[in-house]
């Protein structure tokens, strides 16, 4: 499966996730194997309840599998403590959510700066990096605006700026266009695809819209807690140009 990428960036091996115990136990994931190579743009698709969000939470180190292995750059994430996983998120991951999840009543610039605060970057360096990230999403002129003063598409672009400001190894986008109309959705997707193509950002995106999944270089379909289809299985992992 990972024949042309001996060291995948992320690997899930036999991952299961069960919520609750006993008779009321709910199996969200029932044995997932997934390798993601650096530079890939993977779209995870599937109907609701298929386990794609659970898989996303595990990939984002926000959750741990019930059993199986989750490797990030060869590190067993499932063995890490809560604090260690937080540090992993801080230094290697970026998140884009469906609901943008920006800090309300906080300017766009300050929102983008947030991950750098936890990286303890000095103020001036933080400012510069945040402005650069805002420039990359085309919102430098909106830096002083608060989320409530921005359109949905703009808010999502601020969220993307926040996700890329740290130059993450892996960018996770959970239904990034779920709250947007079709035109804005395509703008956001073009932006994400551009980041993947030009900066080589590894991207994993959950979506249920096939139209958006087309921007990805590889799509993985979930059903009932299992991988139903994986492009990589049919024609090998793809690399960005």
């Amino acid at each position, binding site marked *: 499966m990972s024949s042309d990428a001996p060291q995948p960036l992320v690997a899930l091996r036999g991952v299961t996730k069960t919520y609750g115990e006993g008779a009321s136990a709910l199996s969200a994931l029932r044995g997932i194997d997934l390798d993601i190579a650096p530079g890939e743009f993977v779209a995870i698709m599937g109907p609701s309840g298929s386990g794609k969000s659970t898989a996303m*939470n595990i990939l*984002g180190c*926000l*959750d741990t599998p019930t059993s199986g292995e989750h490797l990030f750059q060869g590190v067993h994430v499932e063995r890490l403590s*809560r*604090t260690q996983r*937080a*540090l992993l*998120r*801080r*230094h290697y*991951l970026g*998140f884009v*959510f469906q609901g943008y*999840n*920006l*800090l*309300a*009543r906080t300017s766009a610039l300050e929102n983008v700066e*947030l*991950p750098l*605060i*936890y*990286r*303890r970057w000095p103020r001036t360096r933080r400012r510069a990096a945040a402005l650069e990230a805002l420039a990359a999403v085309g919102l430098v002129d909106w830096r002083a605006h608060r989320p409530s003063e921005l359109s949905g598409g703009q808010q999502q672009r601020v969220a993307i700026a*926040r996700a890329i400001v740290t130059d993450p190894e892996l960018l996770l986008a959970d239904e990034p266009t779920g709250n947007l109309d079709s035109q804005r959705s395509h703008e956001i997707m073009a932006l994400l695809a551009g980041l993947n193509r030009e900066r080589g950002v590894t991207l994993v995106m959950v979506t249920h819209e096939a139209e958006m999944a087309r921007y990805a270089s590889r799509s993985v379909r979930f059903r009932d807690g299992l991988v139903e289809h994986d492009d990589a299985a049919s024609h090998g992992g793809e690399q960005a140009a």
Partner: protein
Amino acid sequence: MLRNALLVALREVRRNLLRSFLTILGIVIGVWAVITMVTLGRGATRAVSAQIATLGSNLLLMRPGQRFGPGSANAPNFKLADAAAIRDQIGGLSAVAPAANRVVTAVYAARNWSTVVTGTSNAYFDATGWNLVRGRRFAEGELRAGKAVCIIGETVRSKLFGSESPVGSRIRLKQFSCTVIGLLRAKGQGAMGMDQDDVVVMPLRAVQRRLTGSVDVNTLFVSVGARADIDRVKQQIAALMRTRRHIADKEEDDFRILDTRQIAETMTSTIRIMTLLLGAVAAVSLLVGGIGIMNIMLVSVTERTREIGIRLAVGALGREVLLQFVIEAVVLSALGGAIGIVLATLGSIALASAMHVPYVFDARICALAFFFAAGIGVIFGYFPARRAARLDPIEALRHE
């Protein structure tokens, strides 16, 4: 990190200005009450000490009867010979002054003023620590003859003479007139709130003959030498007086010896206990204020669950979120403490002047109250902050 947490905290305070104000009100009132109580207590203690010092240190005050003040009517007054006996038979005394007094209206020109006329000897001035600003003490001949001369206190001077110089003038007391020969240096208000300067001092014999019509005296002032043991002197005087007043062994004393130092100690310790008690009551309101902060911090954590989720997702550690919320609680309570200190300072100055006690600024009590308030923020902010820090980021992000 700390700086950012502080900025976020200040922003939150500003964002919910009214709520923040109401939250810290408890702390403000608590700090205000504690500082005001302690400050006024300290002022009162100092005032009492100062006033008792003006009475003369090492002073014994002897009155007939068991109680000080009125109600001693059935106990016989002292004889002049009692004063002489104490002076001659007890060692270690620096002055003994017998005194008789009477309330009289003093008249000068068209002005009159009701005051206390004390008949005594020059020893009285030494025993009670009076100094003259103008004029002189009584001459030996004036004392012996009971001449109508007097030395007046500052209050009497201002009431009768206004801007005129009193020395050499004649004032009328009841049916006789009397030459003012001296003016006493002002002492100010007394320990019980009475005006110590509202006095007219005359030779004892003049008062006895013209005002009381008796050869007895109702007060003996005994000043004990600096090196003498006051308690032993008191015992010796008591024993002597019991003999002279023919008191049987089983009977109680029918006179009382008051010791200024003892009065001072009793009063200051009473004030200290009161201060402590009121301060403790005030401290309870600080505690209540702390609970108010805890309450609002819990609300804040719930309201900002999503924010906490975002912070955790981008890599904030649990302890960093904890720190942020603790800092917020501390900022609130410290703000309350600071406002409380300002209000307490203003309030204490106003109350101290209304109560005629000196205002004593005490940086230590302010610092103590401030850090106590901040500490309350830490204690009561910790629980809500821990709740925030333990939130599951996935749940928190899903929170509406």
